[in-house]
């Protein structure tokens, strides 16, 4: 081969196309709304889920963890617009997220702007940044593109770490100056509002990605993923479509950064690390690239595990194990990295493929009495 070929995740039949039992079928379009409603009223619940969350559902600690999970669900869904839906392997997506976090933080804390101006400027700036860097990076494709985006993201990490002009706070990070913020977003008692903000962000990303995927542009993007040459043959310019997807995903990530900044109350340099982009990739692959809910679930689950495995690692059950087991298990990234490798081998479709993988089993159980249905595809 004189040129290296990069495979992209295979096209997936949307779940909507596989017919199901009728009652289920009628309910399905409303399920996302139902899930949204449940998530929205969840902070009114005082249910305790021992082992899963430390406090009751409406405690600030639990709500903050959930809010972080929701933001990363949205972030993963936005990243999937690149990886799962267009087949672009970007290793620099953390940059636009970090731009959102630091942009909001710096404009509020250092420049003293009100929140809405800071957020608007940050999201606009993040989108423009994605457009400019994408315009350069997209001159390459495949693995070279991955390396170039990685290098660009590294610039962000350097800028933050070196603390040029004393803007970013360097290694210590930059706590958010909350004095000028709306009262409803400040203080432990108002964590619930941040939770709703995170939920709104997630809903927005899912809506945007879904609309884009269903539009003519989305079909071109899917075409680019499956076979770029065919799109070229149709007289469409792959570069422009990829740039649109890259810019949009960058803008979504920057908005997520603004929300995240409010939730955790500041910025710290670890969000600029390449590790974060790698985590996004892990989330999407674990969830199921190119599916509507897979990346969202992957993002939520990953962040949840990342937080909870730390507690799990220091729990008595793990401490009691011999050192060669307990030490690795106390490292969330060891567990997640291993799970991820296993998933690549044994679970290529991610969580989203669970149902179709389980379907034969369920079907076998249900169809046994009626011999005629056995072996029929449905």
């Amino acid at each position: 081969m004189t040129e290296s070929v990069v495979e992209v995740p295979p096209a997936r039949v949307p779940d909507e196309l596989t017919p199901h039992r009728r009652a289920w079928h009628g309910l399905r379009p409303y399920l996302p709304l139902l899930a949204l409603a449940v998530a929205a009223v969840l902070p009114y619940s005082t249910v305790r889920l021992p082992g899963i969350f430390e406090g009751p559902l409406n405690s600030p600690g639990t709500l903050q963890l959930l809010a972080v999970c929701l933001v990363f669900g949205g972030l993963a869904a936005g990243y999937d617009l690149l990886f799962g839906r267009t087949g672009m392997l970007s290793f620099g997506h953390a940059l636009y997220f970090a731009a959102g976090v630091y942009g909001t933080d710096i404009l509020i804390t250092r420049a003293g702007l009100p929140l809405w101006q800071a957020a608007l400027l940050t999201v606009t700036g993040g989108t423009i940044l994605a457009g400019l860097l994408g315009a350069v990076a997209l001159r390459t494709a495949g693995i070279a593109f991955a390396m170039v985006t990685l290098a660009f993201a590294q610039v962000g990490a350097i800028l933050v770490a070196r603390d040029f002009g004393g803007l970013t706070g360097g290694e210590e990070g930059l706590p958010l100056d909350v004095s000028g913020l709306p009262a409803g977003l400040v203080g432990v008692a108002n964590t619930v509002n941040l939770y709703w903000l995170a939920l709104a962000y997630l809903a927005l990303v899912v809506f945007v990605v879904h609309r884009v995927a269903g539009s003519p542009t989305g079909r071109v993007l899917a075409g680019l993923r499956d076979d770029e040459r065919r799109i070229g043959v149709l007289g469409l310019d792959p570069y422009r479509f990829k740039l649109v997807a890259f810019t949009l995903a960058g803008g979504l990530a920057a908005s997520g950064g603004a929300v995240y900044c409010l939730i955790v109350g500041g910025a710290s340099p670890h969000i600029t690390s390449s590790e974060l982009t790698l985590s996004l990739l892990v989330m999407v692959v674990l969830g199921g690239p190119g599916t509507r809910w897979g990346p969202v679930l992957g993002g939520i689950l990953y962040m949840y595990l990342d937080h909870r495995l730390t507690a799990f690692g220091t729990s008595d059950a793990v401490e009691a194990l011999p050192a060669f087991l307990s030490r690795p298990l106390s490292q969330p990234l060891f567990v997640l990295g291993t799970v991820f490798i296993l998933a690549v081998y044994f679970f290529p479709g991610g969580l989203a493929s669970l149902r179709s993988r389980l379907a034969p089993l369920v079907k076998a159980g249900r169809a046994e009495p009626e011999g005629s249905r056995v072996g029929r595809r449905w």
Partner: protein
Amino acid sequence: MNTVVLLALTGLGLAALYFLVASGLSLVFGLADVLNFAHGLFLGVGAYATWWAAGNLPGAGAEGLGFVLAVAFGVAAGTLVAVLVELVLIRPLYSRTIEQVLVTVGLSLAGVALLQATWGADARPFPRPEWTRRVTGILGAQVPNGGLLLIGAAVLVLGGLLAFLHWTRYGLIIRAGVENREMVTALGIDVRKAFTLVFAIGGAAAALAGALGGVYLGTVSPGQGGSLLIFAFIVVVIGGMGSVVGSAYAAVAVGLLQQFVNYYGASGVGDLCVVALLAVVLLLRPQGIAGKVAHA
């Protein structure tokens, strides 16, 4: 003048480190199309194995032959891990490029976490011979010996690699495979054996970089490989994927640029210039200085 000589030599020391990491990455990518995120892990394994051997392996230590033995142990460990990674994790996914990248990503996350779990997250002092802590006067500049050691090692590795690539049958297969892997198999050659070999070479060079980098920096920590890896990637892209000579040129360019600009400009500006250099090279020559086209 002294400053310029000093900067040039420390810049070359940095370039040597980049080259040791990038040459293996470049060969692995050029031949097998694997973007190896786990390459930083090989470096970490080399550093920690050397560190461990100096304290625990009979006969090994921080001085003289004992140190050579410790480094040899580290290089052997890095090579072994690289070969195992290729055989167990990469080979079953032959020619499925994206999955291979994903596996190496998972491996880099899990592997660094494992190093951290075993030896802690903090940097540990690295055993090193007394003479590497001293400086040598060259043209009036006081140059750290650890850096000179790195430069010497990189030159030897470069020479050894070129000799191997040009004068052995496997070297021939690797050079041909970088150009057109499919055609190599169409001549009746099992190219996958060469994959294992380039992983071994890359693992050995990265492990050497880990050991000697530890000597140069004086400490070893789990995350060391990761930050170095990103600049090594940049070196690979600028140099042209699959080209050892291209990697050498690019490493020197990147090392010197970084060192000089960081000194004469503000700290960190040099790193930014390196990325700017990458952007310029990509805009002017998407295939890098040498080597195959970096397009999909």
